[in-house]
């Protein structure tokens, strides 16, 4: 292999460095109008009257729409959301009306001129209160109009194995507690937006900032049917994304509103959020409260794990309501535990509704699990790293959930992290400073995560007449480097130079189906499909070579003799070797394997042209391949099933110093050791891992969407802090363990999400080691830490 494990320039880098990459905010269509949305001013209220007459009279306005004058468009996997709300609003950001106008300012002015009269209703903002008897109902009927009696969402994820109560009673040591994690914003640097446009046949094209172009096509086709446009099709084109992080996992009300406005006006309509709107109107990551208890025997072997999760879902269901599907991974399978209880409640409230974000339930659960494990270690008097090693997952094990773990580098991850932190000398050291070290581990899907019937990715590979490879994939390049991985694997697997691999824009009209770029699956599934396609494509080339190679070589020899009559003859009888299996293709040259005689090397483009223009009928070189990983769709009610083809493991360690006067936490150093299967592109892997780790630092220390009775209070980067280059000013020791996963493309596992999963508990554990107090709710702000330190001091005096 020539390119695996190297870092050729990523194919999108130069366009991005010169400002030429086109994001949705840059995209313009001829005759395009601009849409603006009127959002609710109440968290829960009946809509009594909407008066759009003033808005309609503003010059430049082309359409004003409400639920009254448009077909009902329902969305969400629970079908509990409407593009334009009817009857009542259930959150501050509910879409009530929308405007299309000739420029964005006129659209915004007209949206503001719409008059809405409300009757406020009692609202509920706390998931526990929402579950209490007599709590206001967020939805009083289900999507089919049947009465609803509770705010509990109709989603069920559970796992019970062994006998938890018996195991608890028999445990030598038990630790328990409750942990909570905040609402946070994905904060893609490129804000959300879309353009919808109908052609004269009323087929639709949507330029969408999405991670799921094909499921979006399905959703938009559903909307067309609801609008009465039968037998019409939606095409989804994905521009440069500007970050995804889970925001593109669902289709959004603003997209349907843009479709409705385009349908009303007959013009392309763009809806583009600015930063304030992105913060206020785009769904954040869910908050969670996790009650966790774990026990162990005298030797530190884990005996049981008891987990109960409550999540504040907000007013409507997105895919984010399936976070527990991923929580099941750590809950059942991080470290070896024989007896497990896992249950969760997802609750409707009048808060902003939540959606997917990187890690998808895993950081929430792992924060509780790994914090609790440190408490158990203390309880049992066992070193925290040792406790983890005693219960470490090993290769070739089947976990209580039924996860079939083939490769597992967790032991090495734990050991290396401890070594890099100088754990034995620093942990628990009474050195008179407020410094401490902590660690936490992770398990995540490494071979995609089956949450849908198909978990597949297709690719189409095509050589043009010059031997350029065009690769169409339904996967989305969000910035993570999918296109670089595809280029590297294509170059090695097919035998062309990376810069001859051109990756087509993701477009449902030209690319094959892909379930979506999520669950760290992009490179894993697309590169596996690519490997299948590569074999087919090479075979096609070599079969053509059997016929065409001899004449091309003869021609080359003739030319050579003409140039140099004394040129030596080829060193072996190449004619006798002609056989489809004997050919090789490397760097765009076809040759008989085991020769480097240049005259016997035929330019791929030349061979393709010879095949194209051949007498008696030419041919083309296009193949498709479709890869669906060897995994199972779990039974969620039982929490059973091998949901991924393989699993990614890792450990992060942190050394911190706490300023006991101010409560400030300074990270002195981090170590991150990740079992990646195999490194495809080290530079991109490093970027992905450190980038995720920075999001983990933000989650641990800084980030929280603050709300007051459902209203978001900090919709900007001044009041919502993400880490800057200054916060990230500490050394990061990164190490990749290569376990060569048999199901992975060239051995690689998915690595998109894992980097942020264990960061917060590693930091919380280091703080506890440094100053002896444990913060149970993220983010760990100076105020919380200072209050905890004061409480501890008061207790001591």
């Amino acid at each position, binding site marked *: 292999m020539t390119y695996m494990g190297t870092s050729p320039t990523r194919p999108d880098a130069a366009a991005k*460095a010169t400002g030429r990459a086109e994001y949705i905010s840059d995209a313009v269509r001829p005759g395009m109008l601009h849409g603006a949305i009127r959002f609710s001013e109440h968290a829960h209220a009946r809509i009594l009257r909407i008066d759009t007459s003033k808005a309609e009279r503003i010059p430049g306005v082309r359409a004003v729409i409400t639920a009254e004058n448009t077909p009902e468009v329902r969305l969400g996997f629970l079908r509990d959301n409407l593009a334009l709300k009817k009857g009542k609003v259930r959150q501050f950001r509910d879409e009530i009306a929308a405007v299309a106008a000739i420029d964005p300012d006129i659209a915004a002015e007209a949206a503001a001129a719409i008059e809405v009269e409300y009757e406020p209703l009692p609202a509920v903002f706390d998931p526990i209160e929402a579950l209490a008897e007599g709590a206001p109902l967020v939805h009083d009927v289900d999507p089919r109009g049947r009465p609803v009696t509770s705010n509990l969402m109709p989603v069920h994820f559970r796992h019970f194995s062994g006998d938890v109560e018996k195991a608890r009673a028999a445990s030598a040591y038990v630790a328990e507690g409750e942990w909570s994690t905040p609402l946070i914003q994905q904060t893609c640097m490129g804000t959300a937006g879309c353009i919808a446009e109908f052609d004269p046949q009323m087929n639709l094209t949507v330029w969408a900032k999405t991670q799921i172009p094909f499921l979006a096509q399905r959703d938009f086709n559903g909307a067309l049917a609801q609008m009465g446009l039968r037998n019409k099709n939606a095409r989804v084109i994905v521009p440069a994304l500007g970050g995804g992080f889970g925001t593109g996992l669902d289709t959004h009300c603003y997209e349907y509103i843009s479709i409705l406005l385009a349908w009303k006006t007959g013009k392309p309509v763009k809806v583009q959020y600015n*930063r304030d709107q992105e913060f206020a109107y785009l769904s954040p990551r869910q908050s969670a409260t996790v009650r966790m208890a774990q026990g162990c025997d005298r030797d530190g072997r884990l005996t049981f794990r008891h987990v109960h999760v409550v999540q504040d879902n907000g007013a409507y269901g997105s895919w984010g309501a399936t976070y527990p599907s991923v929580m099941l991974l750590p809950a059942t399978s991080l470290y070896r535990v024989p007896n497990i209880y896992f249950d969760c409640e997802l609750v409707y409230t009048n808060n902003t509704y939540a959606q997917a974000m990187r890690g998808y339930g895993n950081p929430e659960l792992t924060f509780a699990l790994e914090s609790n494990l440190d408490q158990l270690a203390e309880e049992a008097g066992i070193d925290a790293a040792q406790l983890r090693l005693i219960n470490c997952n090993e290769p070739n094990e089947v976990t209580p959930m039924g996860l079939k773990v083939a490769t597992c580098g967790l032991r090495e991850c734990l050991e290396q992290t401890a070594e890099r932190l100088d754990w034995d000398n620093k942990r628990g050291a009474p050195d008179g400073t407020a410094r401490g070290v902590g660690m936490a581990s992770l398990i995540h899907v490494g071979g995609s995560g089956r949450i849908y019937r198909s978990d597949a990715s297709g690719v189409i590979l095509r050589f043009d007449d010059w031997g350029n490879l065009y690769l169409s994939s339904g996967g989305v390049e969000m910035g993570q480097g999918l296109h670089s991985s595809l280029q590297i694997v294509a170059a090695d697997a097919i035998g062309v130079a990376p810069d001859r691999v051109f990756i087509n824009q993701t477009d449902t009209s030209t690319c094959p189906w892909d379930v979506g770029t999520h669950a760290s699956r992009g490179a894993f599934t697309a590169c596996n499909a690519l490997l299948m396609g590569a074999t087919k494509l090479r075979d096609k080339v070599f079969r053509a070579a059997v016929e065409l190679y001899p004449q091309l070589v003869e021609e080359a020899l003739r030319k050579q003799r003409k140039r140099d009559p004394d040129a030596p003859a080829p060193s072996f009888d190449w004619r006798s070797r002609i056989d489809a299996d004997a050919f090789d293709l490397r760097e765009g040259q076809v040759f008989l394997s085991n020769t480097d005689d240049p005259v016997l090397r035929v330019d791929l483009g030349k061979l393709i042209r010879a095949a194209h223009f051949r007498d008696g009928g030419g041919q083309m070189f296009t193949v498709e391949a479709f890869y669906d990983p060897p995994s199972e769709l779990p039974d969620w009610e039982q929490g059973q099933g091998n949901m991924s083809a393989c699993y990614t493991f890792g450990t992060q360690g942190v050394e911190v110093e706490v300023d006991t006067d101010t409560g400030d936490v300074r990270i002195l150093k981090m170590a991150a050791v990740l079992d990646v299967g195999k490194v495809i592109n080290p530079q991109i892997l490093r*970027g992905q891992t*450190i980038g995720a780790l920075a*999001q983990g630092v933000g989650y641990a220390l800084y980030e929280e969407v603050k709300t007051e009775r459902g209203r978001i209070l900090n919709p900007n980067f*001044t009041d919502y802090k993400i880490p800057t280059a200054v916060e*990230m*000013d500490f050394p990061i020791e990164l190490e990749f363990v290569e376990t060569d996963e048999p199901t992975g493309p060239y051995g690689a596992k998915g690595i998109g999400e894992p980097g942020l999963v264990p960061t917060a508990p590693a930091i919380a554990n280091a703080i506890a080691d440094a100053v002896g107090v444990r913060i149970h709710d993220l983010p760990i702000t100076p105020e919380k830490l200072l209050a905890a330190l004061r409480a501890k001091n008061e207790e001591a005096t």
Partner: protein
Amino acid sequence: MEVRFTLNGREVSCSLVGSELLLDVLRGPLGHRGTKEGCGKGECGACTVQVDGHPFNACLLPAAEVEGRAVTTIEGLAPAPGELSPEQQAFVEAGGIQCGFCTPGMIMASKALLDADPDPADADIRHALVGNLCRCTGYAQIIESVRRAAALRGEGS
């Protein structure tokens, strides 16, 4: 009113109706969409441009303020078609680019830093980029890109 200034070495003029910001004028009538809007209020740095060599958030600067001044945007950096400036080259080589939305602003802020200090210490680089947010990279390879840019500029001079 009319505003006249130098944009990437060429004289340009643009009529203003009111209080348009430099960012609106660049991305709108002047068609320079390489400068990105990430927040519209000077918090994220995605719209960083150089005005008379100094870094500015184009989303905060009234267009009328650049009358007679020299504005450089990301489009003005590459010395020739198919070539990249040392700063652009460094970001491409050192992995400073992921989703790319912050990249034009990052590169412009880095160039402004290197114009003022050709050999900055790491802490100076981090300080200079504190107003440029990135959600993808964790900044490590961005800092390395700036170091690499300093080296490339050194070789070129």
